[in-house]
């Protein structure tokens, strides 16, 4: 008898515990859940901008570990990027985007900050998409030199977001940070 009562208590306790935790801990989408860590921040795995209802994201054509990893480009050190445009609205939509790459390196090991980055490459695209339709654009970067940081910036509408940071390593690999 007591065993059955104890089981009933445990079942109700487990249910109440799970429900209370579900209400007390917020869920995070499109992110590694670091919301419990100091700072309540997340790691956005796929930065995105939205212009005229069209969502724009950038990834490297070759997969890299997220949120940071490396690409094994041994020769030329060029990187291919894929810009993906997805119409999230329920009607057709159009928009323009610009993708550009900047390059920077410390002027001196004892400088306080890095100088203002220089733009080394730029391209753009226009998309016209039906509701829910998506389209991809592939771009190739110029050769990336060692000991510099390259930032890929995507702009659309009034938004401009640095999407990826690339830093070629001595061994020929290219470290990717988001």
């Amino acid at each position: 008898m007591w065993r059955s009562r104890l089981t009933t208590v445990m079942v109700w306790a487990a249910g109440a515990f799970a429900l209370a935790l579900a209400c007390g801990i917020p869920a995070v989408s499109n992110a590694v859940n670091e919301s419990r860590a100091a700072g309540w921040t997340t790691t956005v795995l796929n930065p995105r901008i939205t212009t005229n209802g069209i969502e724009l994201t950038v990834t490297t054509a070759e997969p890299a570990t997220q949120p940071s990893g490396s690409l094994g480009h041994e020769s030329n050190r060029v990187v291919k990027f894929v810009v993906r445009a997805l119409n999230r609205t329920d009607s057709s939509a159009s928009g323009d985007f610009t993708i550009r790459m900047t390059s920077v390196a410390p002027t001196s090991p004892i400088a306080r900050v890095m100088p203002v980055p220089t733009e080394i490459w730029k391209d753009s695209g226009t998309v016209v998409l039906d509701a829910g339709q998506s389209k991809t654009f592939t771009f190739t970067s110029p050769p990336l030199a060692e000991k510099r940081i390259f930032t890929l910036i995507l702009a659309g509408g009034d938004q401009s977001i640095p999407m990826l940071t690339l830093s070629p390593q001595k061994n020929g690999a290219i470290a990717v940070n988001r």
Partner: protein
Amino acid sequence: MSTRDRHIQVIGICVGLLAAAIVLAMTGERETNAKSGPMLSECDGRIRSIAIQYVRGADFAVPVYRQFLGELPADVIVYAVCPDRESFEELQSRLGTESSRKALPPRRLRAIVTGHPMTAWSRDRWISLWRGRRESAGTLVASRGENGGQIWPQRQGDERIAEDLARAIGRGTMRSGLYFDGGDFLADSRSVFIAPGAIARNVQHTCGDETELSEIVRRQLGLRPILLRDAPDHHAGMFMMAAGDGRVVVCDPKLAKGLLAPVELPGGADFSDSTQRRFDSVAAAATAAGYRVARIACVPACDGKTYITFVNGIIDERGGWRTIYMPVYRGQARLNAAGEGVWEKLGYRVVPIDVTSTFRYFGTLHCLVNVIEKD
């Protein structure tokens, strides 16, 4: 269902809720720094301790340290963070033996040897939080990662300074989930101004948008965030300073136009309309937030990072009086006097510190000196 069964259910629910409350309270304890106070104000309180960094050969920093530490009240504890003992001894020797108006008594410096590469710039490494009610000491908050650490070994080493320092002096430390340089944030007792660099490094990387970023900053630093999205692309402390009593001082290049003596700057002085608008946007944001704004002369160079600025100083408040250790520049007597005049008009005692040796490395006095604790 009998009354006894209902009681069993109620007991079960209570046990479950109690367990959940304990779990949430424990995880909440870890996720919050609510026990710490807000970010230290730039302009309020008496300075109790500061940190500087030094590496062998950082010649540019020595004249600034020598003047500043010579002027600083003797009761301020100075921690010198160095990569090795040799660097510390070189600093101590150069501060004590080179000709100076006031030689620094070597006993004032307390060495913290890290054993890893680093730069000589302390300000950007961490932010100090006031001690909370139940804390014996405040907390140092370090960035999630240093900008450029991937290719810059000294900067990578800088990432560890907050922990090195906190461990050595018995303070708490926290690694923020946000990317920032300490100089991206500038606080008084009610607000924290956020430079564009910190916005760009976090939106769509550590948070969804600016609203979310503001909320994170508010919770982590305990102050009202003011985003300076159109400000110059530099640290906040290079183009503005909190002056206390609801006042801020904001740089204004056009005030420097007629005062600048010939000087070689990278690309020349930048008095363009577009740059002026960026500085004006800071004044507008501060005004919109309810601050009274005083403008002060400033010369940004065309490289966007070299500034002749009079706001990148250290403020100490003692006995109701405020002193600013204000950067000044050799050969710029008229500009220096204009800068000094603004601070004096605000009721400050001005102690000039010649930063001619450092400003070409994109920072001046405050960039070299970080305040750990204030009363």
